């Protein structure tokens, strides 16, 4: 059949395809190939995580314990809800229900934004407690700031009305260790409870608890070296920031996609026959959710069992 003069295309059928089925199949395979690509992209980071977690398990656990699992868990739930609303948006698009479709897309965007908001809270907390691994990117504090104590608190870069767990716990948790940080360097004021724990275990069981790399990595001439230990924790925070940062970037892209979709849905582009863009954006959104499903336990929960 000659097709170039085929003027009665189905809505959204592009010229290179014969029919809607071919087009949908192409778009869907294309999207999946894109996701495969994304998996490998994050895969590089997961490899890095694996390597260093294998080398410095205690430092990673200790670092992880100073992430706030409450916020992390909350965010997991938020993302799951947004995944649900996204799936429903696709569902209503398939049904050709414009209004519910629009509502679901809006909800997805709302939850996506909440997720990013929580990330801002968490990042701020890290900034305030000197846990950003990059020198100079932490809050700068002087002797005077610290002495000022409670009344100086508002000087910290704080989100109104929201107190992070570290701040709440502030007094008892880390008062003993707070050091001034005039250059905004990465700090570790929380001691080395897990290394002590590991050494104790070694004594009790007579079996090595620390890895070879840890024996080299935390000690200088057989004596525990807080500076070297801090560097390993810094490595954890580096990985944390890169992974969650790239994930957040994907969320932002997703929100852009949603905004475009919202507009399209609003003007009534999609119908029971043509809704591929909604479905494809959905695939992307769920993918981003899946990445977080792994990030949450790997970053926030590892080492949690040592607390008790």
């Amino acid at each position, binding site marked *: *059949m000659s097709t170039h003069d085929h003027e009665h295309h189905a809505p959204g059928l592009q010229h*290179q*395809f014969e029919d809607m089925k071919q087009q949908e199949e192409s778009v869907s395979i*294309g999207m999946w*190939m894109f996701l*495969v690509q994304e998996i490998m992209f994050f895969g590089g980071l997961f490899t*890095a995580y694996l390597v260093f977690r294998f080398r410095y398990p205690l430092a990673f656990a200790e670092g992880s314990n100073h992430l706030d699992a409450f916020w992390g868990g909350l965010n997991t739930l938020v993302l799951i809800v947004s995944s649900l609303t996204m799936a429903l948006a696709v569902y209503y698009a398939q049904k050709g229900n414009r209004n519910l479709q629009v509502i679901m897309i809006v909800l997805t965007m709302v939850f996506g934004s909440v997720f990013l908001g929580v990330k801002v809270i968490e990042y701020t907390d890290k900034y305030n407690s000197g846990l950003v*691994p990059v020198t100079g990117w932490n809050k700068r504090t002087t002797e005077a700031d610290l002495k000022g104590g409670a009344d100086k608190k508002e000087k910290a870069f704080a989100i109104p009305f929201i107190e992070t767990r570290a701040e709440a716990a502030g007094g008892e948790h880390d008062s003993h260790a707070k050091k001034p940080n005039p250059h905004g360097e990465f700090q570790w004021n929380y001691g080395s409870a897990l290394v002590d724990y590991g050494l104790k275990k070694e004594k009790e069981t007579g079996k090595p608890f620390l890895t070879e790399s840890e024996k080299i990595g935390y000690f200088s001439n057989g004596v525990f070296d807080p500076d070297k230990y801090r560097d*390993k924790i810094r490595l954890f925070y580096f990985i944390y920031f890169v992974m969650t940062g790239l994930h957040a970037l994907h969320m932002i892209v997703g929100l852009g996609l949603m905004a475009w979709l919202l507009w399209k849905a609003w003007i009534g582009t999609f119908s029971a026959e043509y809704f591929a863009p909604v479905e494809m954006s959905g695939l992307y959104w769920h993918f981003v959710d899946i990445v977080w499903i792994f990030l949450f336990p790997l970053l926030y929960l590892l080492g949690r069992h040592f607390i008790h």
Partner: protein
Amino acid sequence: MQTQDAISAGYGGDKPSYLTNGSTLKSWLLTKDHKRIAIMYLISVSVFFFMGGIYAAFIRLELLTPASDLLETATYNKVFTQHGILMIFFFLIPAIPAILGNFLLPLMIGAKDLALPRINLLSLYIYWVGGILTLYALMQGGVDTGWTFYTPYSTTFSNSFVMAVGLGIFINGFSSILTGLNFIVTIHTMRAPGMTWFRLPLFVWAHYATSLVMILGTPVVAITVLLLAIERVTRVGIFDPAIGGDPILFQHLFWFYSHPAVYIMILPGMGVISEVISNFSRKKIFGYEFIAFSSIAIAVFGFLVWGHHMFVSGQSIYAGLVFSFLTMVVAVPSAIKVFNWTATMYKGSISYDTPMLYAIGFLGLFLVGGLTGLFLGSVGLTVHLTDTYFVVAHFHYVMVGGQVIAYLAGIHYWWPKMTGRMYSEFWGKISAMLVFVGFNLTFFPQFILGYQGMPRRYAAYPEEFQVLNIFSTAGASVLGVGLTLPVIYFTHSIIAGKRAGDNPWMLPGLEWRTASPPPTENFEEMPVVTWEAYEFGEENGLDIESARKASGPSVPVQA
């Protein structure tokens, strides 16, 4: 739209060809036609090739004498780095897929276009952005890390534009990913009726395998370069030994992509060679399934051997053994291909047209390149050979002797299809000879130099190596001339070449069953395929008798 252009439409067609369908700049820059995109790739990629070639000329001139007299070491380091980066990321990886693959894939499977034409155009733009950024960085001062960007030199010690070039490569990577993605989708969904998987030309199979590597590998190098860039900006990162990071992890991540990437740089060439050998012997390819599946096998097993670039890097010695073993395994599918190509010529009707000359050159040179790959894969030997000129010779044999020569074969082969005109056979043959001779003269001495121990990336070297280096430089000049000729006669062909006709070589492939140059929508009617691949008889709708009359006694030679 009726555009009356100076170049008339292809023979038989009353409609404009893709070249004449609109002549404004906009009609090119906003086109979704895979053929126009391919032509734009052709031009851009050639620019990068010649820039890389000029760097190569400087390398060879500097190495004429033992001292670093023409270029100071600082400049030399930048020159070979930029030579490697331009040649690999901006020339060789896109060369065959983005030009010939783009142009021919839809034609070969009987589709109107690639499945995702807008993505195709996007990939071209991404390539341009990445390329321009890289060129800009080169003009600002360039990079001196080697194309491998090993840490910690690249993260903490180099004072050159690592970030900008890294960003260029990062961006360019997505161009490659999108091309691969598009090919996979197209091959799955756009085949014409009757075009079953085992009727696909092997060129298509090769591109399928290549695309797999592009999708699965390229993102890893993207994230690696990104981590490197982050580390450079923030001065902290996972590759920094000072805080417990591991520079060797960079090598793992880098080679996870870059070894499979060498198959991005050879599989499309192998696809071209399968076409040329079969078509110019007018002989069904020997062992079709074996060639097809060996491409896939190379793509898959290619992911298991990256550690053979790290035998002396300080990785675990057991890992070295495992990687050496797998390297040997991955050589077998290549061997299968070589044997099948040779067997294809048996009892054929072999013509000596330029593409065939290149293809025969490819067989010989890839053989040497591949076999020396075995030397390097044999771990005890590599301890001596790694980072010497033996490696340099090996990879030029596979990349230049392999892919570049296959690329030249392909460009000659499909030139009549792309432009509707013939090139000069006479000059084509001269240039093929010059390239072959010049190439061997350039790179064969480097094997000997390498075994003697001359390290690579050296601006100055001990005097006893000079003799062989002089040979090498002399060869490079011949090679340079051989590679400059095609530019001249191809340009001449566009302006004043003889009309080619739709099917100058009377070949059965679908791409030869439409006008030359093809119309924008490729085929007048959706083709229905009823024949197997590589069947040359009249019964497959080829009008051989009249073609024979028209073509005269032999291929016309014109200067």
